[in-house]
């Protein structure tokens, strides 16, 4: 069960009550405006109480909220989106959507990891976990973007690359490795949006770029908290602790210089006002693209190289034979 769905229940009930009163107010010609005002104030303070100080683990659940906007919610708000299918080799992977569209008039190729809204769609989309053929479809689109000089816009929202027999047989590692290298050298601007879950190498498979925008309550992690707990302590129930330690929030990653921009969400999370969040993300992308499009390819690639080149955490040790 999603802990945020639990947490926000009293707030949703209160809001339903307010809506009910508002309707009465209009239809019954009785003046409930004072009550409504009081309940509204209560709602605001309840919202602040619930969402004002979320733990990392709660943030993880907010990023996985069942009503959170998904990749296609952003993509479908671009102008004239047309989906392009297939890796030309094995299968069209519905977990990774590809196509082209226009962002404020700028033609862009688009990639997005798409989760389902219900069980049926989740099975169809493998819960947003792409197979190698998904990453290879993405690679094909990347090469098209380079060939035709169109920027690439990606929307990251995946628990990770699909871990299964077929995925391993068909080279999940190779597919992701190829994409990361391809994006590192792609001669066109790349804007990456971390909109929900950024899960490990599966996220990075469409996540290397010139500008990394991250929604305030999205998460981005070296491994899902569950996987990290399993790897670190062979105990996936320690996921909450892992979430705390992994520093996977937008604030952490902005501080580390791993994301370039944090796009704010409304109090309570993106699902509380999806339209506004989608607009804010696309506006941020348009601003970023505008800046990147003015760079020459060599500048762009040098800048991208330096961006990743400097991410590290090493110190020089004074060599002391005894210490070794």
């Amino acid at each position, binding site marked *: 069960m999603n802990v945020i769905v639990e947490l926000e229940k009293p707030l949703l009930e209160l809001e339903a009550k307010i809506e009910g009163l508002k309707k009465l107010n209009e239809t019954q010609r009785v003046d409930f405006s004072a009550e409504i005002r009081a309940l509204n104030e209560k709602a605001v303070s309840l919202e602040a109480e619930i969402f004002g100080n979320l733990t990392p683990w709660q943030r993880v659940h907010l990023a996985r909220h069942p009503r959170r906007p998904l990749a296609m919610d952003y993509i479908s708000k671009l102008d004239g989106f047309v989906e392009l299918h297939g890796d030309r080799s094995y299968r069209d992977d519905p977990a990774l959507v590809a196509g082209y569209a226009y962002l404020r008039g700028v033609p862009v190729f688009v990639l997005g990891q798409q989760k389902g809204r219900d069980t049926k769609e989740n099975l169809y989309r493998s819960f947003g976990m792409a197979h190698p053929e998904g990453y290879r479809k993405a690679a094909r689109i990347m090469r098209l973007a380079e060939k035709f000089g169109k920027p690439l816009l990606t929307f990251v929202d995946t628990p990770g*690359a*699909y*871990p*299964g*027999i077929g*995925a*391993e*047989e*068909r*080279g*999940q*590692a*190779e597919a*992701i*490795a*190829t994409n*990361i*290298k*391809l994006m*590192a*050298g792609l001669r066109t601007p790349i804007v990456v949006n971390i909109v929900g879950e950024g899960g*490990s*190498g599966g996220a*990075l*498979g469409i*996540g*290397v770029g010139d500008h990394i925008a991250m929604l305030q309550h999205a998460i*981005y*992690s*070296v*491994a899902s908290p569950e996987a*990290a707990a*399993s*790897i*670190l*302590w062979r105990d*996936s129930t320690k996921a909450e*602790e892992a979430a705390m*330690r*992994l*520093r*996977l929030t937008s604030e*952490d*990653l902005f501080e*580390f210089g*791993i994301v370039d921009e944090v796009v704010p969400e409304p109090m309570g999370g993106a699902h509380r006002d999806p339209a506004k969040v989608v607009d804010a993300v696309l506006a941020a992308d348009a601003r970023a693209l505008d800046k990147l499009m003015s760079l020459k390819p060599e500048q762009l690639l040098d800048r991208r*190289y330096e961006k*990743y*080149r400097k*991410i*590290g*955490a*090493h*110190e*020089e*040790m*004074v*060599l002391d034979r005894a*210490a*070794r």
Partner: protein
Amino acid sequence: MTPTPNWLRRRGAKPQPADDKLWEICPSCGERIYIKDLDAQQRVCPKCGHHFRLPALDRIALLADGDFDEIGENLVTGDPLQWSDRVPYREKTQGDRTKSGLLEAIVAGFCTVEQIPIGLGVMDFNFRGGTMGGVVGEKVTLLVEECARRRVPCVIVTSSGGARMEEGMIGLMQLAKTSGAVERFGALGLPLVTILTDPTTGGVSASFGFQGDVVIAESGAAIGFAGRRVIDQTIRQKLPEGFQTAEFLLEHGQVDMVVRRSDMKAALASVLRFLIAKGYGAVDVARPKSA
């Protein structure tokens, strides 16, 4: 194995195992083998041919003709997350140093292999399971950049559980950082050859591991992206025989060849010699930016 080369003697003695084990049990055939016999056999089981994991310094001794000029040898992690769980990260890495005799999970430098000058990076599973944090990423990047400057091939021997949890996203970003270096290196027409040894999974297989122009797998090595446990938990069905072994990957088209440890140096030298041999046309190599 050949007598200890100078560079290895300069590094000081090999670490002693914490317990004073005298023998190991072969996980494949159950044979009990004296450790000094095992070491003398390049850590290959004399009975069944099972390849035990090889420490980085032993691997370098196996591949390099003689001297080995290390780079980035004094880099240590900065503990960017100030990580502490049961044991603080800094204490864990201190333990790894004792266990592996290394400051980090990779040793990088320059040497020759059958007289061919190369840059060589070798990962060591004894240090944090060979995981890649900021130091591994930095040293791989330095190695590839320096290979580009020297116009020599780059060889990386992997052995890694993936990105290092204790460095969080700094760890994951090393996939992008090293891949950037590999991409630029490749554009110069210089070869990257990777040797995937047991185990190579996660972030290392999903970056430079599978970015080699030629990818060699060592016999019996476990290689893949997802760990077996994660796959088990996701699909809850029996995994096929030999799943994620080097031989399985060969059959599924993922690696160029599977090579036994005893043949590894010759196989690597053959590949390198071929790739750098004068061929057709002048490869359009940009001059290095700095010497």
